């Protein structure tokens, strides 16, 4: 092998190692509704054990990226690996918290029934739900401060409570990668606190959290990594170096006034 080939081979191996180490690695992902790409040729390498915020303007493809990463919607092209393995063989390691607005909350179910759905992979299609399963579901509800609501009708919950129930369902999956779609959208302050506490506890256990987020003011408090997207990837990396006026301007364009950016507590850049 020549020097050049050796160097290329080495580079290739380094890239492969990074890919294998990442709990979620996306390569060349394009998703399109109709003929206009919502996400175009995006690469992402989520850091193991990180709390990563996906940010970008409205219509930038944040939720789409998340859904495509989960295989919930079919991408036009691209690959997704979870700890270096194809997505389908790693389903049990991922938990998804969808936007609560996408659900009909008049569905006949109690809070605990929704959380028990998180045990689907464990239970399979027909195994009976036992007391142990119920206790596990209750425990997950306790962790989000909803223990008293287990037998409440889901239609009676406030928006913040609905969001916490969805989080409890994801907790029941006992995954090591949590993907959340706007978990703080339209929730009360108490819920926001409850959710962020749970997410930080997950991180403390070495699990990885990725959330679509829209409140730039809380990025530095809540997250350690950011992924900026506006159809194409704009930047990714630690908050301290990547969450800067320059990357924000690139992602949001003229839509984010300079004055607003100055108000934010930004990374050093």
């Amino acid at each position, binding site marked *: 092998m020549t020097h050049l080939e050796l160097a290329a081979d080495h580079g290739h191996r380094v890239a492969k190692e990074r890919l294998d180490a990442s709990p979620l690695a996306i390569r060349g992902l394009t998703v399109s509704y109709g003929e206009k790409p919502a996400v175009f040729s995006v690469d992402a390498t989520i850091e193991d054990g990180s709390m990563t915020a996906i940010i970008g303007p409205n219509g930038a493809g944040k939720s789409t990226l998340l*859904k495509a990463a*989960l*295989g*919930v919607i079919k991408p036009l092209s691209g690959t997704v690996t979870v700890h270096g393995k194809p997505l*389908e063989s790693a*389903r*049990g390691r*991922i*938990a*998804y918290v*969808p936007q609560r607005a*996408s*659900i*009909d909350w008049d*569905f*006949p*179910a*109690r809070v605990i*029934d*929704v959380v028990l*759905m998180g045990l*689907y*992979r464990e*239970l399979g*299609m*027909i195994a009976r739900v036992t007391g142990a399963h119920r206790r596990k579901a209750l425990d997950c509800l306790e962790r989000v401060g909803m223990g008293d609501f287990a037998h409440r*009708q889901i*239609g009676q919950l406030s928006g913040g409570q609905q969001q916490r129930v969805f989080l409890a*369902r994801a907790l029941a*999956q006992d995954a090591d990668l949590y993907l959340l779609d706007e978990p703080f959208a339209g929730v*009360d*302050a*108490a819920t926001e606190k409850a959710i962020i506490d749970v997410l930080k506890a997950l991180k403390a256990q070495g699990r990885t959290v990725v959330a679509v987020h829209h409140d730039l003011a809380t990025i530095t408090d809540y997250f350690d990594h950011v992924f900026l997207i506006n159809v194409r990837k704009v930047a990714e990396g630690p908050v301290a170096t990547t969450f800067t006026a320059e990357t924000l301007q690139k992602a949001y364009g003229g839509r984010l006034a300079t004055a607003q950016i100055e108000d934010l507590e930004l990374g050093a850049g």
Partner: protein
Amino acid sequence: MLFDALTLQLGYNATLVALGSALLGISAGVTGTFLFLRKRALVADAISHATLPGVGLAFIVMVSLGGDGRNLAGLMLGSAVSAWAGLLAVQAITRRTRLAEDAAIGAVLSVFFGAGVVLLTVIQNMSSGRQAGLDGLLLGSTAGMLFQDAMIIAGGGAITLALVLLLRRAMTVVAFDAEYARSIGINTDRIDMLTMLLVMAVTVVGLKIVGLILIVALLIIPPVTARFWTERSELVAAYAGAIGGVSGYVGAAISASAPSLPTGPIIVLTCFALFIVSLFFAPERGVLAAYLRHRRFQRRVHIRQGLLALAQDLPVYEPLTIRLLASEGLARRDGVPTEAGRARAAKALRDEHRWHVVHSLPDYEAVSSLYDGLRDIETVLTADQIAEIDTHIGGPKGVPA
């Protein structure tokens, strides 16, 4: 006569029909629940209408092979094949064009049904078709039901029911949140397809008894009725099965108890009667309960508003408010408060002040969000907390809390 029918003492045919109808009703109700929860009730309409050309073609094929064109198993097979074709057509239109599912259903339903009617007319004019009686499959006809027909219906119904029980957990997760279902590795397309297959099976099984037009009623009315009585999906399915079963059994008995009462339509009307009762009298979701709840709420709002007006010596204009205050003994008909009224009014006003304090204190944030203008403050705060809040107010002392 009806009692005889209900106790299966009206002869062999009536007994076969009653038991067959009950089993059909159970499997239709349970299967229909998952269609209803998935919000795809209309698809049942497309499936059922799309069975008709298959019925006609199966008859022609069986006759041309020298067999009996009225063989139920053959007709069911034919109807299943064409229902499947109709379902695929709906799916292809929805996926490949910009048309929504309702438009696709409308188009497929009418075209398949039209084609079926043409085939039946052709059969009527065939020499072997004069007595075919295939139009009985439109609205059901149980008069000449054979034991072997009943066995096919019972077997088909039982198999369908077993499959629904097997798939119920997956179907529930998909119906509640399809995207989440995909995220945990459920193949939602496959589950949806299996649901449709089960609906198709129920339709085909029900051809003989209720006919292809009315089977939709047995798929949809039981779950809709059951929904009035419970807030849990597995109970909706169980109740829907019971409602369908009772409708099938009672309906068949009623139709057997008098001459010239058609079985299928009577079953559907029985089911509808249960629906009407539920619609009005269900304890939580029923119309009557909702009306009473609204009235109670309105009463609380008026009395509260009236008391707050009295406390501030403001005139009460609304006749309803005055009437309600008077009926509680809180004011006279001319709007002047009674002694009890004055005391309650003073308390109402002080509670308003207390709430005002609660809003301003950060410690009470969670309680503060419960304020709706009606809630009694004692139901959310302890006496000690209220006493603490009262230290923030000057207000009248010594009025009972």
